[in-house]
């Protein structure tokens, strides 16, 4: 009888240990933009050059990011635009700014929210490093989990400053939305 109990306990402990080792793999998910996908950008509002500095704006659609990796490593969302250029003439870097987006947790998500940032000055969208729109840093104050779960973003308008001495032409740029994981 004692032997049966002993075997039962051993099997139960082994099973629990096996389950513990398997569970993280079963629960591991991904880090991605949720459907319908990453944000899309509207056209910039038209402007008529008149010799004075002017502003033009565009809007990004709301989007969401989900981190189901269970890594606790955090993540970083960076928006970056290449310098606006016609191929002959270019606008100064730092011409495209964007206030920090509003980010709220999805229903049931109680984790510490990622830190959002204004995209202006040396963090304007069209700078060498772009703008860290949101940083989920496990080392930041909070629960230390790196903002897992789903986060809903409501971006603010992008503002393009057009100087008074701009040359006419179509100014091209590539907008890259990067989700990264790293140190």
């Amino acid at each position, binding site marked *: 009888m004692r032997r049966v109990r002993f075997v039962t306990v051993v099997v139960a402990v082994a099973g629990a240990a096996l389950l513990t080792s398997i569970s993280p793999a079963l629960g591991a998910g991904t880090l*991605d933009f949720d*459907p319908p*996908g990453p944000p899309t950008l509207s056209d910039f509002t038209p402007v008529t050059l*008149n010799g004075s500095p002017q502003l033009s704006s565009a809007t990004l659609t709301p989007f969401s990011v989900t981190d189901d990796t269970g890594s606790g490593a955090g993540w970083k969302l960076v928006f970056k*635009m290449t310098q*606006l250029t*016609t191929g002959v003439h270019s606008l100064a870097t730092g011409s495209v700014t964007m206030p920090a987006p509003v980010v709220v947790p999805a229903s049931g998500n109680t984790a510490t929210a990622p830190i959002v940032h204004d995209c202006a000055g040396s963090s304007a969208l069209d700078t060498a490093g772009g703008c*860290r729109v949101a940083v989920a840093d496990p080392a930041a104050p909070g629960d230390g989990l790196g903002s897992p779960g789903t986060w809903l973003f409501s971006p603010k308008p992008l503002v393009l400053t057009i100087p008074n001495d701009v040359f006419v032409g179509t100014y*091209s*740029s590539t907008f890259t939305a990067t989700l990264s994981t790293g140190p």
Partner: protein
Amino acid sequence: MRRAAALAAMALGVALAAVPVAGAATQPVGSVSVTPGSGSALAPGGGYFLLSGAPNASFEQSVTVANNGSAPVTAVMAGVDATTAAGTGAVYGAPGEVPRRVGTWIVPDEARFELASHETKTLRFSVHVPTGVTSGQYLGGLSVGIGVPSAPPPPASTATSGFGVAITMQTQRVLAVEVDIPGAPFVPNLVVRDTRFATAGIGRVLAVTIANDGNGFAHGSGTIAAPSEQVNQPIAVGTFVPGTSAEYEVPWPAGADEEHARVDVSIDYDGRALRWSGVVGGAPATPTTEPAAHHSGGARVGVVVFVVGGLALALGLVLLVVGRRRRIEPRRRPRPAPRRASRRPARPVQRSRGRG
């Protein structure tokens, strides 16, 4: 003459710009999730690749790429460099950018592939550490991009009747690839490389270029200030990659003195400190960087101080015990009767004598 020509061109531009042209944006078709493959060498938590090896080492790793969207996508996979951006910390090259540093070490088996809706693929890539690489922390990334054009767009024509903007959108997932080459300790070393004034948007900025000349990541925070001009800008240093530099731009008040204003840069990072003062564009008035007096001089100095202090303490204790034993032995036989404890706290030396 050239100025007149430029003015004429601008006037013509203004005249031609009477008809506005709206900017157009092309949109990406989706995004993918990218996770490290099983058996890969990962950082604690498993969020990115962490490899350790000597120069000329090679590593085989894998990633799992999944298309969670409802439309098929064409993905472009490549190694990208990690650099440092002001306020951002480590940032990664965009799809299509040619890597020049660690990004060249990372070579995927497939550079471009298709993924059907809800399809998942596991793909391999290799990391080759070049010979001659010195000890330190190196950072690159494995990038999977969506919406990346197969060829660069032709330069836009300037023969338009107005001002327009054309934006191409793409998305990218990056998993960092950190390669640690052991040997010397990993120690960051931030220095001010350059200061200048520039125009950003329609305003003036003070641009301060800071570099990490060490061989380890730096993390910290500080300020760039010009007290005489009421400028005091907090700055954050998040994962400053060794061997890279970042330009921090500080808004400069209109009409403020650009020739004589003294600028102070102060950053505390990883037990070290950067202190720089000088006139913009000139030589620093005080030595650049190196550990501040109140910062104990970094990890290595701290360890040395700790070890020497510990040895001195141990030696002191040994000498104390030996000395006490020598004094105790002859007095043990005629042990005096215990005295009442004094209310006044005894000094260690007095207590030692009393016990004897």
